[in-house]
């Protein structure tokens, strides 16, 4: 252990974002270091590996202009921490936690480790409190509950940001118990995208904290921003008792950044070049959602994943789906039919729904209605394949009815344009649709 900062000018090699430094005394793994270039530019960096007195350092930001001999490296004797204070609410930061709203930095009340610590499974409270998003297809069929992590699986060109901002505007807790505070992390977004989100956030009455890493900012910060966001969320939730909704978009950019850094470290690539530890790495983010027994407050997560090539088996959506508690899958087909939100009901799922619905939570008949709607719609979808082969005229009357139901369900239940529906309206809509086609509600 060292008691003060140490400065070294013993760089032996530089490759992309990686520096090798020699003759370092007792470096810590994960220690924060500052790299000062010959022209006085200061870069943030972290100790990645230690081999005797040789240390491998990873630099966040542009390493152009660094040299061997004159560049100095300052060791700070501390691992990366996040400054926290209630004053953080309402602020916008960049991916290295510097204010991006032109205001001065707040005075921290405490510092917490960026990686957080794993929540003891024995301390977790079961997520079961219903969140009303105002979208029938989510509330009725894929119910979101407090403390859940439910990603949106989108494809390029689909309105994921409209869906997420709709949830942001409308999300309400069931018992009228206040509203959410939003922690927003934008990873590698274009100006067009994040300014859209910022407009939505600023229009909202509830508080928010934003971490913006735009498309042209350092890739390394894409790995930090979600961790800043989640550490902030945990602080607000479990120390300040707030209900926090964390929106992270776009996780695909995060994973690509992870792959880029992993390749630079010359690690063994796994599927499609993504590192073998991507599952654990993603889990270290997603698993920070939850509730704690005996504490108010909660962290609910709504990450957005853009499926490359619309492929749900691609490693990014695949590993995400294995960790998260369900998924909301957007469909190009429904989008083409001008249905909003274009959520494909069949592959979408909320694993925590069973506990969040029913008497005293939503309505007693919720489970029955959602099971029936799902069943009839699935049958209608099945029959569409048959229709494509034998033609509509060749089908029996009852099959034609199911086909019509499926169409109507997509247009009227899933599709709702901008209008917000309460859970009661959603369920009544479901009942009236089934009645309209005289389908039995079993």
């Amino acid at each position: 252990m060292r008691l003060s900062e140490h400065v070294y000018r013993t760089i032996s090699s530089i490759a992309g974002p990686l520096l090798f430094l020699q003759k370092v005394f007792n470096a810590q793994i994960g220690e924060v270091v500052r790299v000062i270039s010959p022209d006085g530019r200061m870069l943030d960096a972290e100790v990645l590996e230690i081999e005797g007195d040789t240390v491998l350092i990873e630099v966040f930001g542009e390493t152009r202009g660094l040299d061997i001999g004159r560049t100095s490296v300052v060791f700070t004797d501390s691992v990366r921490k996040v400054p926290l204070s209630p004053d953080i609410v309402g602020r916008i930061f960049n991916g290295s936690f510097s204010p991006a709203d032109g205001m001065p930095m707040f005075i921290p009340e405490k510092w917490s480790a960026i990686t957080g610590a794993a929540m003891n499974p024995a301390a977790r409270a079961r997520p079961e409190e219903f969140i009303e998003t105002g979208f029938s297809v989510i509330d009725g069929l894929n119910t979101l509950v407090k403390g859940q992590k439910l990603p949106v699986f989108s494809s390029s060109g689909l309105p994921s940001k409209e869906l997420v901002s709709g949830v942001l505007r409308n999300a309400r807790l069931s018992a009228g118990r206040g509203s959410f505070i939003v922690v927003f992390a934008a990873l590698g977004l274009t100006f067009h995208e994040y300014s859209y989100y910022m407009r939505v956030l600023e229009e909202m009455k509830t508080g928010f904290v934003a971490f913006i890493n735009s498309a042209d900012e350092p890739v390394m910060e894409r790995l930090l921003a979600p961790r800043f966001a989640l550490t902030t969320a945990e602080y607000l939730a479990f120390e300040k008792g707030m209900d926090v909704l964390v929106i992270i978009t776009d996780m695909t950019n995060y994973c690509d950044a992870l792959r880029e850094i992993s390749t630079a470290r010359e690690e063994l690539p796994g599927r499609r070049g993504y590192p073998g530890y991507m599952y654990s790495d993603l889990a270290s983010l997603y698993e920070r959602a939850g509730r704690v027994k005996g504490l108010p407050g909660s962290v609910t997560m709504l990450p957005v994943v853009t499926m490359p090539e619309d492929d749900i088996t691609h490693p990014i959506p695949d590993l995400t789906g294995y960790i998260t508690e369900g998924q909301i899958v957007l469909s190009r087909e429904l989008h083409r039919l001008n249905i909003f939100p274009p959520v494909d009901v069949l592959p979408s799922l909320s694993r925590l729904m069973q506990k969040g619905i029913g008497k005293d939570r939503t309505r007693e008949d919720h489970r029955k209605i959602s099971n029936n709607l799902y069943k009839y719609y699935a049958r209608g979808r099945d029959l569409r394949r048959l229709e494509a082969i034998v033609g509509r005229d060749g089908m029996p009357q009852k099959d034609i009815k199911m086909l019509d139901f499926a169409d109507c369900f997509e247009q009227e239940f899933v599709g709702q344009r901008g209008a917000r529906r309460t859970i009661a309206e959603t369920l009544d809509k479901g009942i009236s649709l089934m009645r309209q086609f005289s389908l039995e509600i079993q």
Partner: protein
Amino acid sequence: MMRTGTGPITGKILSISGPTVSTDLKGLRLYERVYVGYAMLTGEVVRLDHDRAVIQVYEETRGLASGEPVKGAGHPLSVRLGPGLLSGMFDGLQRPLRRLREEMGPFITGGREIYGLDYQKKWQFSPISKEQDVTSPGDNLGSVKEGAFSHYIIAGPDDRGRIAKIRQGDFSLDEALGEYDDGRMIVGCHEWPVRSPRPYRKKLPPSGPLVTGQRSIDFLFPIAKGGTAIFPGGFGTGKTILEQSIAKFADVDLVVYVGCGERGNEMAEMIEEFEDLRDPWTGRQLMERTILVVNTSNMPVAAREASIYTAVTMAEYYRDMGYHVLFLADSLSRWAEALREISSSLEEMPGEEGYPTYLASRLSGFLERAGVVETLGGRTGSLTMILSVSPPGGDFTEPVTQACLRTTGTFLMLDTALAHRRHYPAINWFQSYSLYATELAGYFREIVSPEWETQQQRCREVLQKEETLREVSEIVGAEGLQDSDRLLMLIADKIRTEFLSQNAYGEDAFSPPEKTFASISGIFAYYDRMLGKIAQGLSLDEALTQEGGA
């Protein structure tokens, strides 16, 4: 175990890379447990070179500095075995999660050693061995009551000798229950290295079914007590729900459940449920017969690798008392991935998809710890393993699924298409198989009905024919089929929706074999009636109306 080397007791950290640390400490043995750094993080020696030892650290290494001390524990990574494990909840290193929560709050920070057993609690001991008896490891010295179970105090690996004194009454685990004639104490617990299978007198062939209460498993793809089963499935195919349903309803004495690299919320849900629910066989609280080992996906990766060994050692310990123990792991893929991460941080040569080449041999070594055994104490106990596998992209050709297929007896393939139709459990009836089916048929014939196999065969045939007919009907339309074929499709639909699918939340979640058999027989009785009517010259629609009216 005594240290034989003459090296220093404390060494220094030389290098750190992720969870891998090397030290100059001499005299360590392979797989010895070590304490790393000022924080005393737990680690295990995984490689020895002439001038350094490589250590796998089981906790977060962030903040660890080179030059910090390393200490050897003198024994391999072990678990403590004794009364008090049941209804416990541990992490991958057997630290009790409930007590961890009391001591450090809702988040787990590293470097805290808390034993898996409670050394304060008193147990009422009644001896079985007598004074002057000569005991050897594995003998039953006596028993205590652990909940509803008789917990036999088994002589540990070093407990060999003539008993000079043995007492009766209330003892805590650090008090002597008696002593040997050479003065050594007899205590109620011992340590066992997790990576060594516990010994037994001999292995017996799997015998008798393990009733799961899931119709599609018990009827079509039964699992034997002492057997092994895997069910691979993509995400959303209901692996966890199926594992948990089996954990709730299986007709075994005890269940050891490992949440290996899975979701924390799911575990919270499971714990609450297990505290509420009752064991359908005995009526007792489910938690009383359960041990949970939980290493969620965000807990350290290396401990995830160790977690299945920790759990299986505890399972073997209860097997050695003559209990039928069920070991469930969700999911084995996460364990294999942990192995891959560790292997890659050791810079080993990768095999298929980056997994180390020893993946298959490690797996088969692990799976061989299942079985029916005659214990050292002369009882018969069994350890059955049911493991879920999460193949990436739902692709079953990947290495973990393939390696499992070579060594497991029952293969239950979970089908994404079925899950999308909300057919749960989404077990594909064409691809799945059980190598125990013929052996177990005899038991079902005896305990349920002599018709068991014939009905089973009939069920398979109907499902097989339906598949062929479905292709035809997609071309000619359902109306174009003959009445007998349409009837068959109707019956197959009934089998699928009323028999094979089972709601994990309702009354139907548990189906004992008698009910399973009655249900399929009912469907076939209906089939026969309808066939009779068609044979009499009625059309299918007429027959259906008649049946509906009757």
